[in-house]
Structure formats: C-alpha cells, structure tokens
C-alpha cells in the first residue's frame, strides 16, 4: 500500500462505470479526508449519484453494471473479491433522496441494522435508539412515541429517522443522495445543521442539486458533467474562483 493513501479516508482511482454500452463515469479520480463534508454537484444525469453509489456498492445489483478502477476506503480496495459487501455497507451508510423508513415502529426502524447483526440485548438496543435519535436531532420530538409507526411522521422527521437508522450501526462514512430534495425549507435547514454536527465524527459525502446547499454544508465540492469530474476543490475556491469555464457556467446558472 502506498503511504500517502493512508491519510485519505477515501481514494478513487480511475473509476469508469458502464451500464451495458453506456459509459456513465469517465476516468474519475479523487480523494477525501476523514471528517470532511464533500458535495457532488452537477446537472441531472451527470453521474454524481452513480459515483456515490459506487462507494457502498449499491450499483452491484443493477443489470449491466460494470466498473473499472480502484475504490479504496482506508486503503482497502472495496471491490476486491474477499470484501463482504454487507460489512462494507455497515461501514458506509446511506441516506436516500426520498425518506424511506420501514413500515415499522420508530424504535424498530432505528435498530434494524442491529437486529440484522443478531443484536437483541434490550439495554444495548435502548441505548442505541437514544444515542442515534439524539445525534439525528429528533430525540425530543419522538421520545414519547417510539412505538408509533415511523410512517406517521412528517417527511422531514422521517428523513431524520432514516439518518438515525444509518447512525445506529456506527458507520465511518455517510453517503447522502439529495437528502433534502423532498423536504420543506425548515426540514432542510435542520438536516443541514445536522450535517455540520455529524462532521466531527463522520466523513460525509452529499449529492445535491442545490448549489446554495453545497456552499453551506461542504468543505469541498466536486462538479460532475456528463460522467466526468470537471473540477474538485475547496468549496469557497470553487464557487468564487472556478478554474473551468464549464463550472463557471453551471454555478452561475447558465445551464442546469
């Protein structure tokens, strides 16, 4: 293992992705430090979600999916044969675009990740529920209704339950695929605030359509366009002083 990689949480090297004949990610290389927030921006269909889903191998089940290159987490290639994809996904959590709680109680939703690992110790589960819900900034709202169906909550609350569910298994990386795009402004603000707080413990990668959001929450921004990584730099740098004309045109709204 090359030394310099050790300091990076994530290191993608020459990633190419194909869906059948379509070449959707073109030779993307990038690295991320631990405890940072990275935002992926770019127009629809630019490959930012596809790239995100390569990091926890969520594309594996898609027919015709093929990837070349190396995706290293803590220096380990996650596409090696011996890697257990379940263990990987426990370490690389994911929050989806639409809140997707299970049709179960709030409590059971949060501990789902523990249940599937065979953890049934009541006090461990109770502690996990409280810790995760507090981290997800929703404990005070739901602490008296833990046995209520998660589906009875509002969209914003559901999304924070889903974040708590992800936090419960103590991942080191959290992938967020447009986590606030289906939410109202107040819920969005809460999620953004949450991202700030979670940064101290987790490495966060967030896909977003909303450039203001990328500017507010991220340390670094990666701009994708038709499968290519056009520009990747510090957030301020990218928004104030973009190096590429394409980036400039996108962030000023000349196309979207």
């Amino acid at each position, binding site marked *: 293992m090359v030394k310099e990689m050790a300091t990076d949480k994530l290191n993608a090297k020459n990633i190419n992705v194909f869906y059948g004949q379509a070449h959707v990610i073109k030779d993307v290389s990038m690295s991320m430090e631990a405890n940072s927030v990275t935002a992926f921006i770019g127009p629809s269909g630019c490959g930012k979600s596809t790239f995100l889903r390569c990091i926890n191998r*969520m594309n594996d089940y898609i027919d015709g999916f093929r990837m070349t290159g190396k995706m290293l987490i803590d220096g380990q290639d996650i596409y090696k044969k011996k890697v257990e994809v379940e263990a990987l996904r426990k370490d690389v959590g994911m929050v989806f675009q639409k809140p997707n709680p299970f049709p179960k109680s709030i409590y059971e939703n949060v501990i789902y990740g523990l249940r599937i690992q065979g953890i049934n110790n009541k006090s461990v589960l109770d502690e996990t529920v409280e810790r995760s819900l507090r981290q997800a900034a929703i404990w005070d709202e739901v602490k008296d209704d833990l046995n209520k169906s998660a589906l009875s909550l509002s969209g914003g609350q559901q999304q924070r339950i889903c974040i708590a569910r992800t936090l419960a298994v103590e991942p080191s990386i959290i992938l967020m695929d447009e986590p606030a795009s289906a939410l109202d402004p107040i819920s969005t603000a809460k999620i953004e605030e949450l991202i700030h707080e979670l940064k101290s413990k987790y490495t966060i990668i967030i896909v977003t359509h909303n450039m203001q959001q990328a500017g507010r929450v991220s340390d670094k921004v990666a701009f994708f366009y038709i499968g290519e990584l056009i520009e990747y730099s510090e957030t301020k740098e990218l928004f104030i002083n973009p190096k590429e004309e394409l980036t400039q045109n996108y962030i000023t709204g000349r196309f979207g």
Partner: protein
Amino acid sequence: MRLKEKIIEGILLLCAAVSILTTIGILWVLISESSVFFLKVPLTEFLFDTQWTPLFAEKHFGILPLVAGTVLTSFIAIVVALPVGLTIAVYLNEYAPKGFRKFIKPILEVLAAIPTVVYGYFALMVITPFLQQIFPQMAGFNALSPGIVMGIMIIPMISSLSEDALYAVPKSLREASYGIGATRFQTSFKVLVPAASSGIVVSVILAISRAVGETMIVAIAAGQQPRLTLNPFVPVETITTYIVQVSLGDVVQGSLEYQTIFAAGIALFILTFVLNNISFYVKKKFEEKYE
C-alpha cells in the same frame, strides 16, 4: 348514430347481466331447494349432528363430517403450498436473474393448467402408494394424499400473487435494507415479506378458497366416507365429493336425499363466499396503505 350507440350499450349491458343473473339464479336455486330441506330437517341438527348418513336407512343430517373433510384436505394443501409458494415468490423476486424469472414464471403457471382429474389420479396412483411405504397404516383413500396434491396445484396461485405483492414493495425499502448491510435473505424476510404481507394473505385466502371448492382430486383420492375426524390417514368425504356422489347416483329427484346436495351446496357457498370477502377486505386495506 344515436340509435347505434343505444344498441351497443344494450348489448354490453346484456353481457354483463348474463353473469350477474347466473349468480342470482344459482343462489335462488340453492336457497329455494335447501329451504325445502330445512323445513324437514332442523337447522340445529344440520349444524350440530356429528353424522352425515342421508343415503342410509338410519338418516343423520349433520354437515360437520363433510366440513371436517373439507377443512382437513384444504389445511393440508395450504401447509404444503404456503411455504413452497412463498419461497418461490421470494426466490423469483429477489434472487433469480431477470431472464430466468421471465422464463420460469409461465412454466410455474402451467401447474395450474393441468386438469384436476389428472391430479386426482396422480394422488391415487402415485402419491398414495408412495406415502403408504412411509405410513403403512394409511388407507388407500385418505385425506393426506389429495391434500398434498391440491397443495401442489395451488402453489402457482400463491407464488404468483405473492410475487406480485413482493414486486409492488417500493424499491426504496429494498435499498434502505441493503444500504445498511442486510443480506438478500434478511431483506426478503425482514422487510419485503412483512411489507407485502397483506398481498400474501390475499393469495393464501384465495388459494384456500380454491382448495375448499376443489372437487375432482378429493372425489378420486379422498374416498366417500363422511367421517368427523382430523386423522389424515383414513378415508374422508368433502362437501364437494358428496355433491358429486349424489348427483351421479340414482337418487330420486325431489326426495329428501336429493335436497341434501343443495343444503351441502349452500354450506359450501357460504364458506367460499366468506373467504373471498375476507380477501377482498384485506386487499382493500392493502391498497389504502400504499396510496
């Protein structure tokens, strides 16, 4: 133009009316004929007597032995069909490659297209002798063998409808489960099956209803001895078999023996009617849940 529209509308209405009128007609015959029966035999005897011997010298008219035969064979069928059918549904939905699924589903449904008389002889000539090697005390006619074969027959009903229900579970739930490190097995049985449970329940009820109404298999392989028992090794008689037996025999039209088949028929009708309504109710609930 106007007139033509009217005529077309009339023809369409007529077609719809045929099926409704047939149902009403059947109900009318069942009720009117069995009401004659119930004038002669008290309802309490029909419901609570433990013997059914209308064709013997000493007549008893208790429906319970026939109901027991029906319930027993149907229960055996569902015990066979539910685990197998559900496993197939989960396999097709979550494990099988897409091409394989397209190929295997129609083949499975062929099971439902086999004439039931073939199933009946299969039970009598193949399954029963095979089972007798394992259970030597088993009679040539019994509830177990046709029950198992009926189970095989209704597997495609359960697997196909359950598969549809599993398929209808939003993709986002699947992703939520995989995204947190669940295996396919855990995702299937901890998330998908519970989320699709109402659809699965509907498939099971419809399958039971099919088994309760099944005639040929039990008529061939279960025997014709009304017996109030839950022993799967001895001959029993189901409601449907009894109706066949009397319809084919030389019972005098209009006699009390003749009217028993309408009483048995209405009991069967009520049983399947209730089952179908439960499934309809569950289905409606299910639709409310997913918008």
